[in-house]
């Protein structure tokens, strides 16, 4: 059954929210979702760009309470 993993990368400068997403996807199953919280506005463009390039699936990008919540589904 697909799971949703949460990555609280608020305040993460190094290696950064996108690298945290990649690390979490490595131990996730196909169909799982990863929800990344980031205070870095660059994540709102970096993560969708990477997801498109690697061909996973972008589920949502939302902003609120001072951070972005980006959900990605592992597609392969």
């Amino acid at each position: 059954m697909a799971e949703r993993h949460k990555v609280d990368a608020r305040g993460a400068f190094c290696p950064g929210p996108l690298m945290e997403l990649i690390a979490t996807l490595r131990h996730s199953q196909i169909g799982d979702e990863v929800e990344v919280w980031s205070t870095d506005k660059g994540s709102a463009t970096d993560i969708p760009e990477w997801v498109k390039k690697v061909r996973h699936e972008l589920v949502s990008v939302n902003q609120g309470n001072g951070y972005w919540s980006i959900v990605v589904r592992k597609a392969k």
Partner: protein
Amino acid sequence: MAKKILIVGGGLAGTIVANGLCRQLRDELAKGSVSISMLGATETHMYQPGLLYVPFGRMRESELFRDQRKVLDRRVPYVVDPAKHIDVDKKQVLTASGKSYSYDFLVIATGSRIRPDTIPGMAEGAHWFYDLEGARKMRDALQQFQGGRVVVNVNAPHKCPVAPLEITFMLRDHLAAKGVLDKSEITYTYPIGRLHGLEPVAHWAVPEFERYGIKSEIFFNTKSVDPKAKTITSEEETTLPYDLLVTIPPHTGQQVITDSNLGKGGWVATERNTLLREGSDNVFVVGDTTNLPISKAGSTAHFEADTIVDNLSSLIKEDRWARHYDGKVFCFVETGLDSGTYVWFNYLTPPNPGPPSQMIHWFKLAYNRLYWLSARGLL
């Protein structure tokens, strides 16, 4: 009854916690109201950052190791018997030899490990310097290398996030000193759309790469290595040929964490300010073992360990918390064989690397010796 503190893991993080607690709790240890013990996997303690210098013949293997019992305060019994199962409900740790250790407070410091075996062909086709055997093989390969295509391949997650850039600059200087740089081409690959996870470091690296003629391939998430064809291919379907492949392999946490259902990938879910395991009030997590979104690095382990020492001793002596961990990390960055810079940051302060200088490089070389004072909790 004496309060039992058990530290699982004999690397830098666990060792600083043990030695720091011995100083803070010396009266309690003397009267027997507290005991501190440690379970580890090896008799020796390795200075891991020193591995970076081994392939270039700039650090002797013997300089990397000390007897762990000599690094640890003598009041801490050290048992080489790695944990096989951690039961946080029963407050019990089972070891490889079948023994059982109970605790009142547990510090999990089991660290991370490289996993080149998780990418097809990588173990056979690539070199790395993240363990001694790999560093030895890379040293031999560099001695034989007479020029050609060098690929420095970075995978996530990995410890010491600046090491990929350091090895790239050091390789460039090494090939220049050997007189084969004009016959060589260095290509650096990185999983995301810039040269480093840290944006200021990535921006800083761009002109440095241009200055030294180092090529790059961003958005490169390694899919496989073909050791026979000598090619490396990414999930993005880019294939690079190589004569020498140096990889930063992906890491995971230790098997005991996964086997004990304490965290996926071997990373323990940890509260970012208290460094308590999520759901526990007597289990601390330190160093690479946490799932915190910060660098897996020696300095992280050090600053986290200092916080745990203050809080754990304060809880035992005064039944109150002392302070929060603020996410502090400090990293030297070697920018060649004779220059360096540094970055520091925390949860609220972004990093800002300064211009490289020879003096900072010398500081780094000095730290290669001072490390043993850090491990003893004196620095």
